[in-house]
C-alpha cells in the first residue's frame, strides 16, 4: 500500500485528506493529553481511589496510631488478685485505667513506667462528688460535709468500696430527696411514715426495696376531710378529687405543691 502511495508521490498522511491546520491542532491535543495524564499520574497520590474517593493508605495510617490505654484485660493478666477483688465489688464496671491512667507503656515495661496511684480526695470526687445532675441513686457525698480533709482511702478501699458502716439515716444515700423534703411542707414527716422498709435495706439496698403507698386512702389518712390530723393540714375529698389520677401523679410527695 505504502509503495503504491509513494509511487504516486503522496505521503501516507495525505490519504486522510486532513488540512494542515487540523493536523497541527491534533498534534497539540495529543501533547496536551499526554501532559495531562503524566501530571495527573504525579499529583494523584498513591492508593487514592482504591477503596473510595480517598487514599487507602490513610486507613492504614489511622489504624497504626500507637495505643496508650491497654484495657482492663491486660491489667488482670498480672494483677489477678486486684481484678478478682474488684470484680466482686461495686467498682466491677470501673476499668483500672480510669483511676490509674493510661498503662500501655506499663504493660510493655512494668519497671520503667509506673501508673499513677491517685490518693487525693479529688480523684474520687470526679464521680462521687454531689451534683444535682447525676442520676438518682448514684452514691455521692458533699465534699465539704463528708469528713473534710480526710483521704477517702482511710475508710474506703477503692478496689472494694463499701460504706465503712451501715448507714444510719436515709439521707446518707437519698440525699437529694432528704434535702428537697427538708424545705417542703412534709419536712416533719419521717421517711418511714410512707415507706415501710426492711432493716436489711440499709445493707443490701436493691435486695430489700422499701414499700411505697399504693392508693389514695393512704394520703387520705391525713388529708381526707374527716381525718384525725391537725386542722392546718389541707383537706380534699379523696374520693372525687383528681379524677382518675392518684395523688402523687400530680403532687410530688417529697415537695407537695397544693396548687
Amino acid at each position: 500500500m505504502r509503495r503504491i502511495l509513494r509511487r504516486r508521490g503522496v505521503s501516507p498522511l495525505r490519504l486522510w485528506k486532513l488540512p494542515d491546520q487540523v493536523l497541527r491542532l491534533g498534534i497539540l491535543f495529543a501533547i496536551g493529553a499526554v501532559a495531562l495524564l503524566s501530571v495527573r499520574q504525579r499529583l494523584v497520590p498513591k492508593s487514592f481511589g482504591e477503596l473510595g474517593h480517598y487514599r487507602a493508605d490513610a486507613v492504614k495510617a489511622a489504624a497504626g496510631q500507637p495505643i496508650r490505654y491497654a484495657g482492663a484485660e491486660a491489667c488482670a493478666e498480672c494483677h489477678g488478685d486486684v481484678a478478682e477483688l474488684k470484680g466482686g465489688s461495686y467498682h466491677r464496671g470501673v476499668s483500672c485505667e480510669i483511676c490509674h491512667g493510661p498503662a500501655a507503656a506499663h504493660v510493655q515495661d512494668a519497671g520503667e513506667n509506673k501508673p499513677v496511684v491517685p490518693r487525693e480526695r479529688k480523684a474520687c470526687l470526679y464521680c462521687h462528688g454531689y451534683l444535682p445532675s447525676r442520676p438518682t441513686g448514684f452514691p455521692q457525698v458533699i465534699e465539704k460535709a463528708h469528713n473534710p480533709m480526710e483521704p477517702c482511702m482511710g475508710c474506703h478501699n477503692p478496689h472494694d468500696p463499701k460504706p465503712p458502716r451501715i448507714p444510719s439515716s436515709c439521707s446518707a444515700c437519698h440525699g437529694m430527696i432528704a434535702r428537697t423534703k427538708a424545705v417542703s411542707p412534709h419536712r416533719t414527716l419521717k421517711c418511714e411514715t410512707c415507706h415501710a422498709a426492711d432493716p436489711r435495706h440499709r445493707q443490701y439496698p436493691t435486695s430489700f426495696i422499701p414499700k411505697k403507698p399504693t392508693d389514695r386512702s393512704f394520703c387520705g389518712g391525713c388529708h381526707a376531710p374527716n381525718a384525725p390530723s391537725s386542722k392546718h393540714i389541707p383537706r380534699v375529698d379523696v374520693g372525687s378529687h383528681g379524677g382518675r389520677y392518684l395523688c402523687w401523679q400530680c403532687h410530688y410527695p417529697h415537695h407537695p405543691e397544693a396548687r
Partner: protein
Amino acid sequence: MEETPARREFLVELLKLPCSAALVSVLGPVTDAEASAAKEGAEAVGEHYYGMGIQVDKCIGCGRCVEACKSENDVLREPFYFRTWVERYVVHSDGKVTVDSPNGGIQGFEAPEEERDILRSFFVPKLCNHCDRPPCVQVCPVGATFKSRDGVVLVDADYCIGCRYCIQACPYGARYLDPRTKVADKCTFCYHRITKGLLPACVEACPTQARIFGDLKAMSSPLRRMMRMSSLQVLKPALNTEPKVFYSTLDKEVR
C-alpha cells in the same frame, strides 16, 4: 510486505521491554500486598460497621471519657480542642434551659449554688456522630476526609489542606483545626484500637457503662442489645445525616 527480520525483531523487543518492566514492578509488590491485605482485609472489605450507644441516664458527668480521649489521641490540652466532651443540661422550673461544659467536663463539674429551681438536669456526652451520610465528607474538596468501609469517618492528615470547610459543615461541632498540624481533626472511634479488638478509650474509661461500643453488623454485640432494649434517638435527625451514635432516654431539650 518485505520488512527485514531485523526490524521486526527490533519492534518485538521494543514491545517486550516496557511489558517486562511493568511485570517486574507489578509482581514484586503483589506478594507483599497480598500478605498485608490478608492482615488488613477486615478494614478494606468492611467486615464490621461500627457504631456507639450512649445511655444518657447512666452518665454521671465525671469527664473521665474526655480525659481518656485526650491522653489516648494526644489531643491538645487547651479548652476548645475536643474529640469528645460532656455537656450539662439544666432545665429550670421556669422552663429556661442552660447548657454548660467547662473545659469539656475534663475536670468534672461544679455543683450549682442554687439548685432549688432545677426542674431536671442531666449530662450528655457528645462526640463525632460518624454519620452514615456525613456532610463533612461531602464538602471536602480534596477527598481528605472520608467514610471508611467500616463506617468510621476519618481524616487523612497527610492529605488535608486545612481549608476548614468540614469544620463549618459539621452540624455537631465535632471537628476542630489542630494548630500544630494545621489540619482538621476529629474523633476516629479510636480506629487504631477498634481494629485491634480493643474498645475506644472513652468507652474503656466510662465507669458507669454509659457509653457502649459495638458492631452494627453483629446481631449479638453489646450495642445491638442496647439498641433493642432502649428507646433510641439521634442528634438532629431532621438533617438526615443518619448518625451512628445512638442516644437512649434523650431529653427533648438536647440539641
